[in-house]
């Protein structure tokens, strides 16, 4: 039966090709798009990061490394670590908020489920800037929150605004919805008989929660963590509106270089440095989580 074998192998080729052609076709347009509008603009940024600024304040291409040398600066390192800290704190707090909220809605929401999720999404549609600015008005020393505290005799005023807490709080407020939705989605899909089975196996809801529920929603957790971490790290609005004298973040620094500093090459180098660091983190994270997520 060897004879048809070789022939068959030859004849199968076009079929596989036909199938991959469709996927390739699907990839072609978006890939071309991203190349034209994103990759090439990022190439400009990379090229610019080796550039210089002309006498009249224009960025110019060059082949210099001094922008990168300037990155090796304790101030920038501290700033990056601070931003990283804020972003991680944001992720942690968002998790602590998002999981119970998603859990309650997904498993105890009953017929109000959709309404509750809608109630979470609605504020998200009012401008981020306006909501952040509203926090500023609320949290100021004579703002509504402090007035209420004073009227209730609970305190004679707490300094909320212009602190690290306010910045992280703003970030959580801005991005927690990105954590709730994916967790909710994976809890929704969760087979509750799993939880019941877990209760027999692990005795007690707390252990069941950590040994059954949480692992079963890993995919949502990983997605949520990423969707909160990335924008939180690059954000500059929270620090600008709610931050204090010591809460400058990477986002603000980059903004500064492109604006007042009139130093686009340095801003580009900062961006490239930050994106490199983040890409390394992200690839490591994706690699670590994708193998686990696949086990689901």
């Amino acid at each position, binding site marked *: 039966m060897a004879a048809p074998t070789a022939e068959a192998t030859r004849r199968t080729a076009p079929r596989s090709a036909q199938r991959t052609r469709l996927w390739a076709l699907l990839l072609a*347009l978006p890939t071309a798009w991203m190349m034209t*509008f994103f990759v090439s603009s990022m190439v400009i940024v990379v090229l610019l990061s080796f550039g210089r600024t002309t006498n009249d304040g224009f960025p110019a291409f060059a082949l210099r490394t001094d922008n990168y040398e300037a990155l090796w600066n304790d101030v920038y390192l501290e700033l990056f670590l601070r931003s990283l800290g804020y972003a991680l704190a944001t992720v942690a707090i968002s998790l602590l908020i998002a999981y119970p909220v998603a859990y309650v809605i997904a498993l105890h929401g009953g017929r109000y489920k959709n309404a509750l999720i809608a109630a979470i999404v609605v504020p998200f549609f009012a401008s981020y800037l306006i909501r952040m600015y*509203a926090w500023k008005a609320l949290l100021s020393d004579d703002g509504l929150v402090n007035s209420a505290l004073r009227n209730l005799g609970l305190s004679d005023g707490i300094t909320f605004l212009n602190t690290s807490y306010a910045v992280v709080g703003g970030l959580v407020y801005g991005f927690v919805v990105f954590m709730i939705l994916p967790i909710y989605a994976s809890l929704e899909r969760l087979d509750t008989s799993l939880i019941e089975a877990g209760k027999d196996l692990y005795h007690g809801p707390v252990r069941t929660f950590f040994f059954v529920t949480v692992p079963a929603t890993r995919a949502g957790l990983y997605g949520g963590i990423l969707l909160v971490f990335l924008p939180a790290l690059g954000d500059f609005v929270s620090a600008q509106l709610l931050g204090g004298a010591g809460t400058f973040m990477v*986002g603000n620094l980059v903004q500064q270089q492109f604006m007042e500093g009139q130093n686009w090459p340095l801003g580009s180098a900062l961006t490239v440095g930050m*994106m490199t660091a983040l890409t390394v983190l992200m690839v490591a994270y994706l690699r670590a989580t994708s193998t686990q997520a696949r086990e689901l």
Partner: protein
Amino acid sequence: MARRVERKPVVAVGVTIVFFAWLYLPILAVALFSLNDKKSLSSFSGFSLRWYDDLVHNEALLDSLVASLQVAAAATLGSLVLGTMLALGLERIRGRRGNLIGAVTLLPLVTPEIVTGVAALLLFTGIGLKLSLTTVVLAEITFSIAYVTVIVRGRLAGIALEVEEAARDLGCTPFQAVRLVILPMLLPALLGAGLLVFALVFDDFVLAFFTTGVDPQPLPVRVYSSIRFGVSPAINAIGTLMLLASALLIVAALVLPRLLGRGTSSLDLITGGRR
């Protein structure tokens, strides 16, 4: 349908209640101060609709609103098409290469907005495109594709590969399988991604600032420009109206499918849908 779990977790319910209060506190403040008769944002002196009156008579603001809606709608449509194509393509290129391309598609999410903005400005002027609402749409699509791809891929992973094979098995060409089965099944995720992108683009100011031409600018650009030096309550009025409009939109999304008698529910759109 999930079975009900009997006992309510008290702590989690408590967290949820506090969360909702916290979520709506600034929203209520925005709504409240939009009704303030003084220009202050911290002391409330009396009710008045003067800021809404201002708003209605402020043509520039209304033009901005229209521009924002147009940009958001166009960018949503564009990024849905491209992002879905990308997600479908990537779904079939698994393994390391898929991971790498996947990571590259996430890059726009990592790039600081101002850099995306400046780079887009450089690119557009470099290739001789005149800045206009069109360039805003181009830039916003580029930025939003990643969100669509992430959401659609998440949903695709939930649709077993077997479904596509079943379609092929029942006589669909690869393209028909996508058109007749995969896309309809992705619909909830597409609606969710569309809603998300619409909200993000409608709210974006950095990218929009750098890529607008001389047409009416998108609304958030104006909001951001004024926020650095203090906000006028007219902005609060806009915020409140935006909120009400979106609430209506979402209520419609909740209620309409039920009215139309279609079994698939509605709001899992935002979450990418359930199985």
